[in-house]
């Protein structure tokens, strides 16, 4: 598909809807292996992000993502705030001056977002963090023509579920060492919602 401002805004809106209805669940996941605030953090941040982008007139997708980045950075806090903030900032930077955005350009943006998260979090794939979802999604999007919305959602979901069995070495869950196994990573779950929302937008706009 080709991306326009409407789709970018819809993405944030749909993500927010998913976050809000799963707020308690995200908090539960974080209670098991973290400090129990991930649902609160994400809900606070995306609520504001949606409020901002829904009420602003945008000329470019880059601007939508820039505002999203700014809001997330200043409202989420914790570990996930700077990471999601960085992700949207990187996407905004890659997509600057590109409107509408092609599939390939969007894949580049996600890849850059992933790199930003890795760098900011000093983490890599396999450490039971949101990177474990962003990585396969970025890979998947690079596949070019073949990408389908359903497949995207599946990829993200599978990646999220895989975090259940891995050992955490970054983030708060790392304190638990072996006890971190057996629980899905909260940040990977919120990232799954993000990509589930993306798939939804895609289905509608295709």
């Amino acid at each position, binding site marked *: 598909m080709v991306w326009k401002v409407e789709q970018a805004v819809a993405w944030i809106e749909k993500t927010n809807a998913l976050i809000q209805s799963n707020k308690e669940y995200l*908090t*539960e996941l974080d*209670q098991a*292996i*973290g*400090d*129990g*605030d991930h*649902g*609160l*953090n994400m809900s*606070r941040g995306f609520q504001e992000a949606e409020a901002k982008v829904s009420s602003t007139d945008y000329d470019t997708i880059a601007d939508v993502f820039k505002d999203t980045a700014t809001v997330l*950075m*200043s*409202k*989420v*806090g*914790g*570990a*996930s*705030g*700077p*990471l999601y903030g960085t992700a949207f900032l990187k996407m905004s930077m890659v997509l600057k001056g590109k409107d509408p955005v092609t599939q390939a350009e969007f894949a580049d943006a996600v890849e850059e977002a992933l790199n930003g998260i890795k760098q*900011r*979090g*000093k983490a890599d794939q396999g450490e039971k963090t949101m990177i474990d979802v962003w990585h396969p999604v970025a890979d998947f999007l690079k596949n070019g023509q073949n990408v389908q919305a359903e497949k995207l959602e599946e990829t993200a979901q599978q990646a999220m579920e895989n975090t259940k069995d891995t050992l955490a*070495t*970054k*983030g*708060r869950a*790392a*304190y*638990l*060492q072996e*006890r971190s196994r057996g629980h899905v990573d909260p940040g990977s779950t919120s990232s799954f919602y993000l990509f589930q929302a993306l798939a939804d937008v895609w289905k509608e706009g295709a």
Partner: protein
Amino acid sequence: MKKVINQADDVVEEMLEGFRMAHPGYVRALEGTTVLLRNDAPVSGKVALISGGGSGHEPAHAGYIGTGMLDAAVAGEMFTSPTPDQIIEAIKAVDSGNGVFLVIKNYTGDVMNFEMAREMAEAEGISVEQVVVNDDVAVEDSSFTSGRRGIAGTVFVHKIAGAKAEAGGSLQEVKQMAEKVVANTRSMGVALTPCTIPGSGRPNFQLEDDEIEVGIGIHGEPGIERKKISSADDIAEELLQKVLKDSVDFNDSEVAIIINGLGATPESELYIVNRYVQNRLKESGIKVTHTYVGEYMTSLEMAGFSITVMKVDEEMKQLLDAGADTPAFRR
């Protein structure tokens, strides 16, 4: 969990307001932020100290604002690191041209948010240095992970680095002192009950009526072992052993200690722990020069405590003895 609050969303803001109103002689608000500033900030000629982190650890961090300790504290939401935009405002407000020193507890979120603010401040030409406190021996100290948590030992950094700054130390000198404190401080905690973030409404974990969680973090992050409760002396011994057997060589040394209440544990129990710790250190040939018993770094209404031991030298002792005048710490 019953709480004395109005709306969960307003807890941090109202708490800061109530704090400011209680201590007008010490702090003022930085309008439109969650930053509280030392009344006379920026203090000319002095390196400024900023600490902060998630709320819920009161009296940390605003309680340590004042002469000889912090110039500003940045409050995040409950148990959630503050965001870079708040931190940068604090940095700008306290810098008198002598540089700003950030005291960061080693949590991924805190480190990232503070470092982003630091990058922004440096881009604006402000000299910023930092220390990352990681005193919690409950967590393995590994280069493959984000490492150990910062807990009550942070208060020693506030006090000693703060005194160094108050005495006119340069940004580098303040940093060196802070690093020395971090290198010589080890802590560990235990929880008897969980705590509940106001917005969440559910306790962070569950403990049976006879269970304790050894190695608890100050955000209710699970510890290293769940076990049956034993006597005060036994629990203290278990924590102390881990603390003393870690990488600092405490043999024949002088130390300062904190018996820190996590929130709901009565002072009487903290003193019972102190009794054991003092006797035990004495037997081990370790001399306690400074003792602090009370709530210094809490975890909402969690019951439990932590033990912090810091090896001190002459300069550190002098800096501990130096005057400090803040709402929560006076000398």
